[in-house]
């Protein structure tokens, strides 16, 4: 892997994204492209703040714009300094267009995209997964690593295998892209469904070739409940691999996806890939 996109909001800089990006950059000898999305429709102040003092309104607006610009510049400098210090190659892309579209285009020419789970690109705090993160997960053209708020060193990998082709695709992509993390202990978690049982032999063969020491956990019950309960009992220092984020409009109304529940937990880095 050579090219990592790390997505930053200059007005709410995520230390966690920076730390993970630098760490993975060093481990895999990759170039980090810091993407600073500077959507002109997004400022740190609400419209009522701008109109608070009518007489000086224009000056006031200018002052606020200047402050925002300064903060965005500081964020870029912080990123550059951190990369220089670690000796990692880096680029800075400052995109001034509508945030989401630019980013998805950029992902086509990248190997991995890093984003903080709480990134919203608005001045409001949204419940995670935010709309912004949801859109990235469903539209990105490369695998995405969704990051927790605080950095922890990764010591163990869990693969959430639900029998679907896309969860296998995710596992394969993880193996190709992050060969260093590949040497960490791997545990496969599945909640027994008939299809899993059907092709268990082939899964074990694939896993045993990639990670001979892997452990398998078969849980019983409702996946949404059981997996999270199981994971809460584990150490925090792990990464989860899971399949896509494809949801039909219908399932969005009735049921949130597994990825949503895990993003909400905000505990572990999530490696998510989809092939559509």
């Amino acid at each position, binding site marked *: 892997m050579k090219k990592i996109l790390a997505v930053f909001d200059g007005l709410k800089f995520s230390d966690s994204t920076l730390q993970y990006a630098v760490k993975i950059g060093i481990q895999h000898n990759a170039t980090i492209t810091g993407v600073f999305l500077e959507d002109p429709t997004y400022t740190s102040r609400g419209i009522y703040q701008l109109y608070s003092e009518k007489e000086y309104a224009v000056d006031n607006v200018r002052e606020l714009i200047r402050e925002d610009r300064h903060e965005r510049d500081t964020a870029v400098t912080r990123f550059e300094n951190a990369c220089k210090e670690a000796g990692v190659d880096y680029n800075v892309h400052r995109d001034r267009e509508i945030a989401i579209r630019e980013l998805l285009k950029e992902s086509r*020419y990248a190997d991995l995209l890093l984003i903080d789970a709480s990134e919203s690109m608005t001045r409001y705090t949204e419940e995670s997964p935010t709309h912004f993160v949801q859109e990235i997960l469903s539209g990105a053209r*490369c695998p995405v690593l969704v990051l927790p708020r605080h950095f922890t060193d990764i010591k163990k990998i869990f693969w959430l295998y639900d029998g679907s082709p896309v969860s296998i695709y995710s596992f394969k992509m993880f193996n*190709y892209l992050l060969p260093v993390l590949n040497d960490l202990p791997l545990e496969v978690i599945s909640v027994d469904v008939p299809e899993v049982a059907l*092709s268990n032999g082939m899964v074990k063969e*694939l896993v045993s*070739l990639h990670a001979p020491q892997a452990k398998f956990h078969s849980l019983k019950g409702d996946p949404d409940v059981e997996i999270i309960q199981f994971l809460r009992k584990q150490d925090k220092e792990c990464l989860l691999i899971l399949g896509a984020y494809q949801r039909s409009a219908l399932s969005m109304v009735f049921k949130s996806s597994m990825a949503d529940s895990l993003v909400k937990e905000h505990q572990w880095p999530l490696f998510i890939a989809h092939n559509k």
Partner: protein
Amino acid sequence: MKKILFVTDALDLHLETLDFAGYLCGLTKSKLLAIFLENDESEMRTDSMVRTAAINAGLHVTEESISLKQHTCDTNIQRFKTACENKGIDCAVHRDRGNPLSEVIIESRYADLLLLHPGTTFSPDIEETPSDFVKDVMSHAECPVVLMPTSFSGIGELVFTFDGKASSIHAIKQFTYLFPQLNELKTVVISVNPEEVDPNERYKFREWMHAHYNYLDFLSTEGNVKVGLVELLLGRDKSFVVMGAYGRNMLSNYFSHSHADSVIKVISQAVFIAHH
């Protein structure tokens, strides 16, 4: 990459393709898993075809055709194992008796790469290359597919086709992740009418390519896509062609055109396809 499938018709084994397969296994330190498709449920081929297959496998034909088919399959598996042993390839064999296409799709889900002889067919009729079976595998497989050359004398260069569409960059990425060992080879990117791709995207694509490959060359031609591409592809020697761009139709066109031109040139090239 750890797990490569060698898909073959159990009656029609092309041992000459094993040079290429063995090379890839050695290069990537993968295990070669042969899938022998026996097609017991819906055998359409005539007794005389089975008899021809038996003779090709080196059997004396004296038996009834049903037991003769079994016997031929067993013999071919034995021939395969012996050949692998002689070449020092780490191999295993799966025998799949059901519908060839659905068996292959499921196997491909649990594999990193699938190798196939472009003439593989289970139909009693004579077909063009690639056969309908091969086309179906190419468009439904859940891992990238490589059409093997029948004679192999090393890989001298990589040839990527690029048309700016998501599927072409997807194929290039998949190839790059599976064969990180090949990045020192001479690499040629060919496109027809490159001006049609947005300059900004072309820049990003080149940036990504330069990060992954060290000896890059960009070739292009103007005009009709079909004619242009065939022109650029034919006459290259010892190349490994990555077809993501221009789709499946292009591939058949490439084959049929080259049949007219020179059969030998085409079968000396390996073609990599990853559908999206």
